[in-house]
């Protein structure tokens, strides 16, 4: 028989379920969140597989010179693809590396935000939540810039298999990051209203969990899409 922990109160405040407290010693909310992330793994797994298959088929057709595929993009780009045997000439690796670095740094600031709220340090909580949201926004800005650059160069969502697969995979990730930014801003808003005290530390922790997950997925996408030819 132990005391009711903060976790359970937050949990019950949010969902006020039946009578029991946790059998596993983990709050319902946290358990549910982990399950959700497990499900997300399969979502991104399926998206990444679809991307890999589509890109491989695209390159095969490009090398074989299938006129339906070759005619979808500017000739000089196609030629580069054919020479390299990959879509690598499309990418600006240094630029994307930089925005990836920004996103990774935001994980650090998220950790700092969580540790601040556990200590009850409102000022630093706000600082680091804000920083995380800002870094995330910079990443999204970079992605928007990259997308427009690709459109100008002749790669669009509809013109071929590679375009569809690339924009879908990175777009899905971008939507996830955007969702994370909205959550961070909501927390920041609550904090300014004075409603984000240390009893809400688990909420911050869960948002952080999500944020780290999205970061890890990006590391995977960055490696698979950009770095591996």
């Amino acid at each position: 028989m132990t005391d009711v922990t903060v976790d359970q109160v937050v949990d019950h405040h949010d969902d006020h379920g039946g009578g029991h407290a946790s059998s596993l010693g983990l709050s319902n909310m946290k358990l549910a969140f982990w399950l959700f992330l497990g499900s997300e793994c399969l979502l991104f797994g399926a998206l990444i597989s679809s991307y890999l298959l589509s890109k491989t088929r695209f390159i095969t057709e490009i090398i074989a010179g299938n006129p339906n595929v070759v005619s979808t993009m500017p000739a000089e780009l196609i030629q580069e693809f054919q020479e390299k045997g990959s879509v690598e000439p499309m990418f600006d690796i240094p630029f994307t590396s930089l925005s990836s670095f920004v996103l990774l740094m935001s994980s650090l600031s998220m950790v700092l935000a969580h540790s601040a709220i556990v200590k009850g340090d409102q000022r630093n909580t706000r600082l680091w939540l804000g920083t995380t949201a800002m870094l995330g926004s910079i990443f999204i800005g970079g992605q928007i810039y990259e997308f427009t650059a690709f459109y100008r160069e002749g790669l669009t969502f509809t013109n071929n298999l590679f375009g569809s697969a690339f924009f879908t995979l990175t777009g899905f990730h971008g939507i996830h990051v955007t969702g994370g930014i909205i959550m961070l801003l909501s927390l920041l808003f609550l904090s300014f209203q004075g409603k984000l005290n240390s009893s809400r530390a688990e909420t911050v922790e869960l948002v952080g969990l999500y944020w780290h997950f999205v970061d890890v997925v990006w590391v995977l996408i960055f490696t698979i899409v950009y770095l591996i030819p």
Partner: protein
Amino acid sequence: MAIIEGEPLALPSGTPDDRPNPLGVFARPHNATGFKDWLTTVDHKKIGIMYGAAAMFFLILGGVSALLIRIQLATPNNTFLSADAYNQVFTMHGTIMVFLVVMPIGAAFANFLMPLQVGARDVAFPRINAFSFWVFLFGGLMLNTSWFLGGGADGGWFNYAPNNGIAYSPSSGIDFWNIGLLIAGIGSLTGAINLITTVLNMRAPGMSFMKMPVFVWMTLVTQFLLLFAIPVLTVAQVLLMLDRQFDSNFFNVEQGADPLLWQHLFWIFGHPEVYLMILPAFGIVSEIIPTFSRKPIFGYPFMVFSGVAIGFMGWGVWAHHMFVSGLGPLSVSAFSVATMFIAVPTGVKILNWLATMWGGKLTLNTAMLFSIGLVTQFTIGGLSGVSHAIAPSDTQQTDTYYIVAHFHYVLFGGALFGFVAGMYFWWPKAFGYKLGEKLGKWNFWGMVIGFNLTFGPMHILGLQGMPRRMQTYDDAMGLNLWNFVASVGSFILGVATLLVLVNAYLSSRKWKAAGRPDVGPDPWDGRTIEWSIQSPAPNHNFDVDPVVTSLDDFWHRKYAEDESGKIRRVATGAQLAQPGNGEGVHLPASSYWPIVLAASFPIIGYGIMFTLWLTIPGGLLLVLGLYGWSLEPADDLDLPHDHDDHADLAGVGASHD
């Protein structure tokens, strides 16, 4: 840890002052009755019953479409349905039966029963539970509005690319299929998270994993399968939506796309899907057979681990749906072998059920008969499954009526028979009266005869070369006799299945006419703790938290060994049952937000299909729903202080010790 003693609870340091005000329009409805109560309820039992009712509604739709198919195929070169109509009817039949009948009945049992069996007052997230139901219902209804808006889907229930593309299926039927199921999938996913959390985290004190009823185990495995399978289907459907609505190229062969991508994604979802449809029924008969054999389940650990093994192995066999798709002999060999071995855990289950019956004193009431029906008919489906696992044999049998027979033996003779058994068994716990036994016997024998007469001949038809999804066939193919027999059987089956509902209606009328006699908490001499509460189950489920000391806990409280080692009844269920006094128990209040939030999805769905403008109000409703949801207080502030939502923590344990 759990709160079982009356010790005072220290309130946490964070006082609830920071709770936001409720949104005025949608204050939580209290003591709602009638229609409004059902719309806003967050009670897992009511939600379970609604899942069941919705599934029955869809069962009638799916059943009528099945009968249309059988009328069309009763005679050769029949013109009852045009090719176009026939293609829509069989597609919708399969889709409705899989996604809107078998899956939700499984969800109905999981929702109604699982919290009772683990000794919880509700699921972990009651509002999300209501949301899961509404979003499933709206997705299913949206799918069925296609009948009135340009025709149903016509791609078959697995809807292979590129036939599902806009070039080959320009009507919006497949969009309804795609987006309707995408929406229903959201409900499955949130439901899975909710139910897994409930099983893992809200078990009664003392109920360790190896003391959980088999049904709870099967629910856990099922929901894990859903958790991981649904996102894969979601990806396939999103890609299809992008192709159809936004001109992307994922399944555009002219751009070099590989149509097998759809098949892989669909079956990576689809095979676990098959197991998540049958495992709840396995769980149900694993409760019923011991009860009416008056013996414990034979080999509980084997039952549990074989279920878990099926859950794991179910992920490694998806390509057996694709033996003729041209995967190459290496993959075909590997998946052929893997598929054969999944027969092992399934066989273990069947033999353990038989061993449970062995030496028992069997009460052959309707619930038990349906359970035995499952065991025998599923065996037939399992055996024909082995002949599919043998890939060379599968090249002769796949996509013929032999496979139609196979999956109906598994899903109808297996899953649906198990669900009907469960309805007869737990009906008193849900509604307070038993379903009539006499009509029940008619129901059972009618279904057994009708079922075997319908689907037994399909084995022969398939082996004689009749492919599935055929609008018609020729006289000279020699398929007339068995098609006619199957059509006759299907009408017997249809009438017999309806007897479930007739029985429910007549039994309820009889019960009310007799002045609603109390059926008692434990009408079957049950084994698990849901029989230790009154029937129908009171709103708050348990007056006090049950403390579980063994598997089949309630049975062990009723029976004990005497000095001579003989097992004697020490008390009846009625003597031990909780009185159903819920005073001081705080339950989560009803809420409007689940249904509001769920309603936004079909609006967005219609918007994607017809005009993107409609997604704006849909999106606004979604945002409103999310904010209303998250700002809704745990309970209304104007309630008396003893209804403070934190009090329920104390109330659970303290009020009745």
